[in-house]
């Protein structure tokens, strides 16, 4: 090991933009500063990522949001791997966006979405861990007056080979913290094939307080003098608040007042949430429901259907002449598919606690994008960014709902403005949460394929008509309806979401058809719908060709070896082609998203009454470097539940401009009895970093639908299955 250079350098870590209009510098000096985060008194901050306590506890700083996906543990493993500390003495600490801002974004991007938590920060967090190790070793070498090359470390115990002297990280951390850090770029990171902590199925670091009720979610925050708010927005999207009769609820116990939150939203503030909620239910409110009230699932369906034949088309991929190839083909296959709006339904409903004073704005919130939360807090309160702080709590579910759109922070700020110096906690009821989501966008897809006389695919035409997330979230991103994001999974470029098939003539089109319903990213985003369209239709085409479902796909995948390897891995583990119990049928699917390759085999039976039972699912995933195989398996298992909830039951239907499924009685979610046995195959790959939280959902539904097709002989083209008569 080389001695640490005494020159201080600055380095640049990419140009990730923060959400919500927060523009801050990206230059990141890895300076030496006193420990300033809470809970690290008497501890030494070796660098931004690593704080060492005298008892050798290594506190690893975590910038991304933990919502169950295990990023806290995975990121800590990556830092610890390079730090070479004792994993049993690792603790973690969530830094705040205010701290990140104050230190010129030393911790980089904090937004946690798009399955990016690890894959876009693995390099700099490992360098942070390695730099801390080098400084700790240098401090020991300095103390012993020996060259640093003669000292080594294992599990946080530093040894000098020549004299046998030993010390620990805890003993040298204070001296290490005073050293100038090494040049980060020149650090050689450990070869992932030699990992000892990363790459291993370590137990999560954040389980204990989830087992005894002591974990404080944002909804559990308690502050002195805190008030509670229940909230209601106009049930029709785009509608407005006209009037309310506060006198009707005056005198109710604990009620402080009614607050108009914004043009379309009202809240009741009381000394407890239940009293606020009860009063809100009793409050007469007059809404102007606006033009959205004329909309329904039927009108929206017609709007999308029109798009399937429209002229204002965005040709996303146009290779060869697919239309002519299909027209001239020996055999033609055509189908129209559709998928509904879906709600995220995080178990912890939206909530946010805000305290405003003349000079300071504070917010306690579950957020996937705490820098966007900070920006929203500042913008809405008018308090400068530097005087705002967001205390982020681990999320009781995120799934994309708690990302860039910080609607709940803005609402909570508007309520808290009426109560200076008093913290106000706003909690949405489940009905509010389901009725005012940013839903998975609705779409329909028309597909056509041509087969030659040998059953080979000669042309494929895919046209999606549906709502655009970007057009709702950030219209400037979409010009003339050209929104490639809605075609996620169909791109020709390698990298993030490449279509795994090569088709001689291919035409993929998008027709933007927006509605009055707010839309947003929903775990897996557009890969879910697009995988259903592609993989169920390919199944139809394979059957029309008289081919085996696996072999037909393989023939299209020779130029996509990574897709193919994952498909083969699923097929092998999933016993493709082998006998099944009577009445049980298999389906297969593969797709790519978030830089990772996924494939699934489903074993499904359909009863005489048309009831679907999913018995077993095998999922194969190539996410490149696998930082924690057990947590990857947990994400895959969870993705099956998330995917099956959508496949079996998921739909948000619109009547009179509003959502009709407002609670779990009508928006059913998968329960334990319906959970199939899930087997996860991690396909070994050490040449890239892919996402984990989202990619596998996309293959769950098409594999199940294709198994149903095998069982009934009929393709399923609309979801959810509860609405489909199978026999």
């Amino acid at each position, binding site marked *: 090991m080389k001695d640490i250079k005494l020159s201080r350098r600055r380095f640049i870590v990419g140009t990730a933009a923060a959400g919500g209009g927060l523009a801050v510098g990206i230059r990141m000096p890895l300076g030496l500063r006193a420990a300033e985060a809470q809970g690290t008194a008497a501890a030494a901050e070796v660098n931004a990522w690593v704080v060492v306590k005298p008892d050798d506890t290594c506190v690893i700083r975590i910038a991304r949001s933990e919502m169950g996906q295990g990023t806290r543990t995975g990121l800590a493993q990556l830092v610890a791997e390079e730090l070479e500390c004792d994993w049993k003495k690792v603790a973690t600490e969530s830094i705040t966006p205010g701290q990140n801002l104050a230190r010129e974004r030393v911790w980089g991007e904090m937004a946690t979405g798009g399955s990016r938590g690890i894959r876009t920060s693995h390099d700099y967090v490992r360098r942070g861990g390695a730099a801390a190790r080098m400084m700790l070793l240098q401090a020991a070498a300095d103390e012993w007056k020996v060259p640093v090359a003669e000292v080594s470390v294992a599990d946080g115990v530093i040894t000098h080979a020549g004299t046998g002297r030993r010390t620990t990280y805890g003993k040298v951390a204070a001296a290490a913290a005073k050293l100038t850090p090494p040049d980060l770029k020149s650090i050689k990171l450990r070869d992932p094939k030699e990992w000892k902590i990363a790459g291993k199925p370590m137990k999560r670091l954040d389980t204990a307080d989830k087992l*005894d*009720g002591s974990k404080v*979610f944002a909804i559990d925050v308690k502050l002195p003098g805190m008030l509670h708010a229940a909230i209601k927005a106009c049930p029709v999207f785009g509608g407005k608040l006209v009037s309310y009769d506060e006198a009707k609820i005056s005198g109710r116990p604990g009620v402080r007042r009614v607050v108009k939150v914004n043009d379309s939203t009202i809240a009741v503030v009381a000394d407890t949430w239940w009293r606020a909620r009860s009063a809100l239910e009793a409050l007469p409110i007059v809404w102007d429901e606006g033009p959205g009230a004329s909309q329904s699932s039927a009108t929206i369906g017609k709007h999308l259907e029109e798009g399937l034949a429209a002229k204002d088309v965005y040709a996303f991929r146009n290779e060869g002449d697919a239309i002519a190839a299909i027209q001239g083909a020996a055999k033609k296959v055509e189908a129209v598919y559709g998928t509904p709006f879906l709600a995220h339904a995080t178990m*912890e409903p939206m909530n946010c606690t805000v305290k405003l004073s003349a000079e300071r704005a504070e917010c306690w919130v579950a957020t996937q994008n705490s820098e966007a939360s900070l920006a929203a807090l500042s913008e809405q309160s008018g308090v400068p960014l530097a005087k705002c702080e967001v205390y982020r709590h*681990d999320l*009781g*579910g995120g799934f994309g709902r708690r990302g860039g759109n910080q609607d709940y922070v803005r609402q909570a700020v508007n309520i808290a403005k009426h109560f200076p110096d008093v913290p106000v906690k706003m909690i949405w009821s489940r009905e509010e949460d389901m009725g005012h989501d940013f839903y998975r966008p609705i779409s329909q897809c028309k597909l056509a394929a041509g087969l030659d006389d040998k059953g080979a695919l000669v042309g494929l035409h895919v046209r999606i008509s549906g709502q655009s997330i970007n057009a709702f979230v950030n219209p400037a991103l979409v010009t003339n309806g050209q929104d490639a994001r809605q075609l996620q999974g169909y791109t020709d470029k390698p990298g993030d979401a490449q279509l795994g098939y090569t088709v001689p003539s291919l035409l993929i089109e998008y027709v933007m058809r927006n509605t009055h319903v707010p839309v947003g990213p929903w775990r897996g985003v557009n890969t879910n719908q697009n995988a259903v369209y592609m993989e169920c239709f390919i199944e139809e085409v394979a059957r029309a060709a008289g081919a085996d479902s696996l072999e037909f796909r393989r023939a299209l995948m020779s130029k996509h070896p990574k897709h193919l390897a994952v498909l083969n891995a699923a097929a092998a583990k999933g016993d493709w082609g082998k006998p099944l119990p009577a009445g049980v049928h298999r389906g297969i699917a593969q797709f790519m998203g978030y830089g990772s390759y996924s494939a699934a085999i489903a074993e499904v039976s359909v009863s005489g009454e048309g009831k679907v039972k999913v018995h077993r699912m095998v999922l194969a995933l190539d996410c490149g470097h696998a930082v924690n195989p057990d947590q990857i398996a947990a994400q895959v298992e969870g993705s099956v539940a998330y995917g099956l909830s959508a496949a079996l039951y998921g739909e948000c239907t619109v009547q009179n401009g509003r959502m009709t499924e407002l609670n779990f009685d009508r928006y059913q979610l*998968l*329960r334990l009895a319906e*959970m199939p046995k899930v087997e996860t195959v991690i396909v070994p790959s050490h040449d890239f970093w892919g996402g984990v939280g989202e990619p596998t959902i996309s293959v769950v539904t098409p594999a199940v639908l294709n198994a149903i097709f095998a069982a009934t002989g009929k393709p399923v083209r609309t979801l959810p299955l509860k609405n489909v008569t199978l026999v």
Partner: protein
Amino acid sequence: MAKLNINGRVRDVQVEADTPLLWVIREQIGLTGTKYGCGVAQCGACSVHINDQVVRTCVLPVGSVKATDRIVTIEGLSATGSHPVQKAWAALDVPQCGYCQSGQIMAASALLKRKPKPTDHDIDDAMTNICRCGTYQRIREAVHMAAGRKQA
């Protein structure tokens, strides 16, 4: 005014009789391990034990709870997090986000009290709480483990 026996302590609370027990536990008593998920007894995040039976408290008016009823919340399940269900949950890393897990653990511990060696079918019938992260496979395995089928 209500008198409640929660985790072995008798507490007096000033609250309207129609307030759901969930909100009394969370807001008057201040124990927040019991969660609000749906308010219509669908998801089970609000599950506690009353006289050893699992009960969804979001629809249970506090006025219907007797002073002699023994209420146990997740905080009172064991003094040190050492209930066999908690140990099995830890051993298998069951929780993801963790929000529903108090309710899951209360449902599982009530099941095991009633049926110390539950079958898969018993688990299907008893464990009807919703987990949006989808930890069901590990919940099933952990219930079996807590029942002693495997060493925790």
